[in-house]
């Protein structure tokens, strides 16, 4: 390969798309490393503190698309204090001072300020795509800057962010010359929207494929929008309430008939079930349906809707669908690949409406299922064993039994055997979340069988350090391990310290690790940041035996971070 000019290598590398493969390519030899890095356009950084913006910019001068993740996953559940970190500002500053012509930025769990958005919009002339998932720290003022200044904006996708809404004015900031929009998602905005500006924007965006509205957009506006954009592929309705006998609703029914391209449907943040028949004609074409925020659709209305969606590949719903409803899904949606069943009672003190029976029905009816997130009231070993047999193709299997440490209600046994069957049968399993009553034995099985496992989430499980050790020893491809409320201590933490450099991160909270143990680890492994979160000021620097409430460690090239708040100690 030394005889090929660089351009040939580069051309070959063009066909190597995935991040992992390109990373592997770059390790072959210096030549390949150089050619690869100069031609790389898309980079994924799973932990923004693993490296610095400067390192990134130096290595990949041709960078066009950057994905960054900030806070640890458990931040989603309020386990990480507010000012922990994950700021995008230094990245945007560095990028704006460089020659990099960044076009796409995708952020997850990061703190994004209006200042950052304004800087981005003014300094990156070719910027085309902004995707923010579970981020916070910005307001509609920042959005206005993006709208006003990014002349070639194609995509603005806001998913489940906490945004302070100062006004619906930002939509009007898209200049009349902006006609390039392909994707616009503002479903998570809580406030009012300038409806006229929205309609005008849609009217001048002939390439618009994806549009997700917020609650403030009424059915009349939806009707007008669909008239102008029948080419939509992805639609998220806002408020879907009207009088089914009205003129507007009648018009909507006719307009929807022209929207033959819609494949993804979501929204229904407010809904009048009697208006649902208007969407029946497009149900047969749907491959993705997200009703997980549509608390107003349940019972027979929900089932009627689902019966028409025979081509669904992805379904997100609330557990009020019940086991019976899941049986309908199983008999209707033969192409189903991904299912998420969310709890409608999010405080978790009531009863979930689905049990093991719903899951078994799904596994029997949907053999292509590979991704599952299932919040349920209870689960049995027998059911899990059947599910494992019916669906050996699981890649992601996340089960959440709402009551912590709940055993199999029929046998009163732990769920070790059930999950054991899952890991044994599903040889491609990459992500697993456990729940229910579990002993060390389930971790023995995981260590033995889950060869492809990359991410494991554990809560209220296990009896001793052995549990964690089985996993660390056995799962060679483990990248992320997050543990809460388990009896794992220093012995589990310190037995194989080298392992952590092969992983992205480890989170342990409410376990038995001590300050001394963490300090020892930090001392032995200088290329890890071992962070202790000392929220309520309960830890003293001196005593080594005190338990650490929250520890987050991750490999990094750049040592302790300089933006850590007072309550985060990097050991």
């Amino acid at each position, binding site marked *: 390969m030394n005889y090929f000019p660089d351009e040939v290598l580069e051309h070959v590398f063009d066909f190597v798309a995935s991040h992992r493969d390109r990373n592997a390519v770059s390790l072959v030899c210096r030549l390949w490393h150089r050619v690869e890095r100069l031609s790389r356009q898309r980079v994924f950084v799973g932990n923004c503190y693993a490296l610095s913006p400067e390192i990134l910019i130096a290595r990949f001068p041709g960078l066009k698309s950057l994905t960054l993740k900030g806070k640890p996953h458990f931040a989603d559940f309020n*386990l990480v204090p507010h000012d922990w970190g994950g700021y995008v500002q230094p990245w945007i500053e560095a990028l704006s001072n460089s020659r990099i012509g960044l076009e796409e930025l995708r952020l997850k769990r990061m703190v994004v300020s209006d200042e950052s958005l304004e800087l981005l919009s003014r300094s990156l002339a070719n910027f085309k795509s902004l995707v923010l998932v579970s981020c916070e720290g910005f307001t509609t003022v920042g959005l206005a800057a993006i709208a006003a200044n990014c002349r070639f904006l194609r995509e603005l996708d806001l998913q489940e962010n906490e945004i302070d809404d100062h006004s619906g004015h930002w939509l009007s900031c898209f200049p009349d010359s902006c006609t390039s929009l392909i994707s616009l998602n503002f479903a998570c905005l809580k406030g009012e929207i300038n409806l006229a500006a929205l309609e005008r924007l849609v009217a001048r965006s002939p390439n618009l494929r994806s549009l997700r509205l917020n609650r403030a957009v009424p059915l009349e506006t939806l009707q007008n929008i669909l008239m102008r954009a029948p080419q939509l592929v992805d639609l998220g309705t806002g408020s879907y309430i009207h009088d089914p006998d009205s003129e507007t609703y009648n018009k909507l029914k006719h307009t929807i008939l022209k929207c033959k391209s819609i494949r993804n449907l979501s929204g229904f943040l407010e809904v009048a079930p009697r208006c649902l028949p208007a969407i029946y004609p497009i149900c047969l074409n749907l491959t993705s349906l997200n009703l997980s925020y549509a608390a107003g659709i349940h019972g027979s209305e929900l089932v009627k809707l689902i019966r028409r969606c025979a081509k669904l590949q992805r379904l997100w719903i609330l557990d009020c669908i019940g086991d019976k409803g899941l049986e309908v899904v199983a008999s209707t949606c033969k192409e189903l690949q991904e299912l998420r069943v969310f709890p409608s009672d*999010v*405080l978790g003190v009531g009863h979930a409406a689905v049990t093991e029976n719903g899951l078994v029905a799904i596994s029997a009816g949907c053999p292509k299922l590979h991704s599952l997130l299932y919040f349920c009231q209870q689960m049995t070993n027998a059911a899990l064993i059947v599910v494992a047999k019916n669906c050996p193709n699981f890649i992601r299997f996340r089960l959440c039994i709402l009551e912590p440490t709940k*055993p199999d209600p029929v046998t009163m046994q732990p769920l070790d055997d059930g999950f054991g069957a899952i890991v044994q049968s599903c040889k491609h399993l990459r992500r697993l979340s456990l729940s229910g009553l579990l002993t060390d034995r389930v971790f023995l099985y995981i260590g033995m069988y889950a060869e492809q496992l990359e991410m494991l989430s554990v809560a209220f499980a296990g009896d001793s350090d052995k549990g964690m050790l089985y996993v660390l020893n056995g799962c060679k491809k483990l990248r992320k391990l997050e543990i809460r409320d388990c009896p794992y201590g220093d012995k589990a933490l310190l037995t194989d310290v080298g392992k952590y450099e092969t992983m992205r991160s480890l989170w342990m909270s*409410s376990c038995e690790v001590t300050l001394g143990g963490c300090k020892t680890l930090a001392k032995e492994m200088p290329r890890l940041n071992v962070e202790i979160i000392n929220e309520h000021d309960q830890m003293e620097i001196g005593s080594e035996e005190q338990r650490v409430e929250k520890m987050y460690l991750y490999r990094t090239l750049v040592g302790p971070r300089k933006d850590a708040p007072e309550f985060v100690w990097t050991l």
Partner: protein
Amino acid sequence: MEGCMAFDKELNLEATELRLGLPGIKESEKQPSSTIKSNKRAFPNMDEKSCGSKDSSKASHAQKCNQEIASPSKAQVVGWPPVRSYRKNCFQAKTMEAEAAGVYLKVSMDGAPYLRKIDLKIYKGYPELLKALEDMFKFSMGEYSESEGYNNGSEFVPTYEDKDGDWMLVGDVPWDMFISSCKRLRIMKGSEARGLGCAV
């Protein structure tokens, strides 16, 4: 957590044992507890912070505390169930909205010069509502019975207009159904009410 104390002992006994047996081989007896392990750290004292991420209204907080006392195993644990706070906030907001908004309806009475308005939400059931109406308009309507409506020869009968525009006798349908279908109330003179469930 009973596991905590047990594990200390087990650590000593089994520390030197290499047991990577095949699945299905029973390990030395561990009592699978049918009682929920009460991990004292897992269910910390419930303070404001652990009850969801946003401030709850007093009513729902009191409700949560009652549930804590009732079933400690189902007590609220920080960050459990593992649902994104964005999603939790959406649903909490919805329930709070539903709780906060009143259902104000017009009440007219035959012969009275002007109408009144009441908030149906503050009543828990028919007896309370009827009592409130009686107090408001200074009349009495007698006992409700399914077969005879409001008998005992009362001059006035409570009726309501439902979603379809029909005038119905108050009390026939379950309270929840009534609240969602009632558009206005009218206290009808008994003579007109003949035929509205007043049998014979």
